[in-house]
């Protein structure tokens, strides 16, 4: 029987190594797997590269991961949030590296990684300083730059419902980067608010099929409190 549901955080985090590229779902705090992030802090892997849209709010979740010194580099589109105190401090002190990527390019680079596409051309950022050093090429009279796939060693995902095959649904805008990251990483770990029986999810509605999921931890934490 395929059963991707794990019972403990230790099982969920087993084998994550120093130096890993960790994709972390969420847009702001919505869809951000804060309990798994806490588990990763306790698991202790260091020297991580984190890919996430933002850089954490306050001192919880992603911000806590940064604050506890586990992250060498962050790849994100918008490190400024309402309360980015931790990231700002680390950045000013030169203790963290930042790769700022346009949000859509970040999403597409991970989509490419999951889809077996090593590189693609995009119009985003052409003529701007974020295109510095990138190959430029013209198609049908318009300029584009080359962007390469962004692969994850690990993805941390927050879902609404999960079954034992790892099929997932999300709640409203908490979908965001989660399905993209689930497909882009070699090891995809999910915290899900609800665990349902196999067959309970509408096959037309599964947003992440289980093939992209390795481990699911039941985390019924209730409502997100900050955005």
């Amino acid at each position: 029987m395929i059963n991707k549901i794990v019972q403990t955080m230790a099982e969920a985090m087993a084998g994550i190594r120093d130096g890993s590229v960790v994709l972390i779902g969420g847009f702001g705090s919505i869809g951000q797997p804060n309990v798994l992030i806490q588990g990763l802090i306790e698991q202790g892997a260091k020297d991580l590269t984190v890919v996430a849209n933002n850089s954490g709010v306050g001192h919880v979740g992603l911000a806590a991961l940064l604050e506890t010194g586990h992250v060498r580099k962050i790849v994100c589109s918008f490190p400024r949030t309402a309360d980015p105190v931790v990231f700002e401090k680390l950045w000013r002190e030169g203790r963290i590296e930042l790769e700022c990527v346009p949000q859509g390019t970040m999403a597409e680079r991970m989509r490419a990684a999951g889809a077996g596409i090593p590189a693609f051309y995009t119009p985003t950022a052409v003529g701007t300083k974020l295109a510095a050093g990138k190959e430029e090429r013209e198609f049908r009279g318009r300029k584009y730059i080359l962007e390469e796939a962004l692969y994850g060693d690990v993805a941390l995902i927050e879902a609404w419902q999960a079954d034992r095959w790892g099929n997932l649904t999300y709640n409203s805008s908490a979908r965001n980067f989660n399905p993209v990251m689930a497909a882009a990483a070699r090891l995809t770990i999910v915290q899900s608010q609800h665990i349902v029986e196999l067959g309970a999810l509408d096959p037309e509605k599964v947003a992440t099929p289980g093939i992209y999921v390795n481990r699911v931890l039941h985390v019924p934490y209730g409502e997100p409190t900050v955005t």
Partner: protein
Amino acid sequence: MNLKADVTPMTRREMAQRLADDVPEGWYVNLGIGAPLQVADYVPAEREVVFQSENGVLGMGPAPAPDKINRWLINAGKQYITLRAGGSYMHHADSFALIRGGHLDLCVLGAFQVAENGDVANWSTSDNDSAPAVGGAMDLAAGARRIWVMMDHTTKSGESRLVRRCTYPLTAVGVVKRIYTNLAVIDVDDAGFAVRQMVPGMTLDDLQKVTDAPLRIM
């Protein structure tokens, strides 16, 4: 900015309303974080315009009543929103495929500067300031069919935001089609800035005095 006594610049809300008047039924529209989001308030419910938020929401509705908040439903500005009947959700790669693929009729951006060649600078005021944070601005600027900018005509210290060439880091090259400022509505075409409309009492000469780049009447 020194204006004649009988000229009253528009407020942010008036600018939003003025811009909303130009959005026809049936358009798919992304409103930039900040002031542009107010445009939605001035599109009457019976004129169906579909608002997109780049975090995967198509068919964004107004803010919910405090007791009706869905805490998993926010817009790109991280405010609680609602979903209209006919709305749907998608993941980030699909959302930016929609944006990059030219399916939005309009994106309204705030900006620091717009140049007469249509260049726009809206994400950073310096090369060395603090951590660069671009968000989805470059994708939207490069992807939507039309880019309209909504911004004050000048900075607080009176410098023109309509310039010959942007001095701030660019968001995208040659994309802006129209600018709604607190003083005027100005098209950007191959010949530069063309003034469509000015606030009451304003003349082209007056407007030119607070504008770096040359203006002409449409």
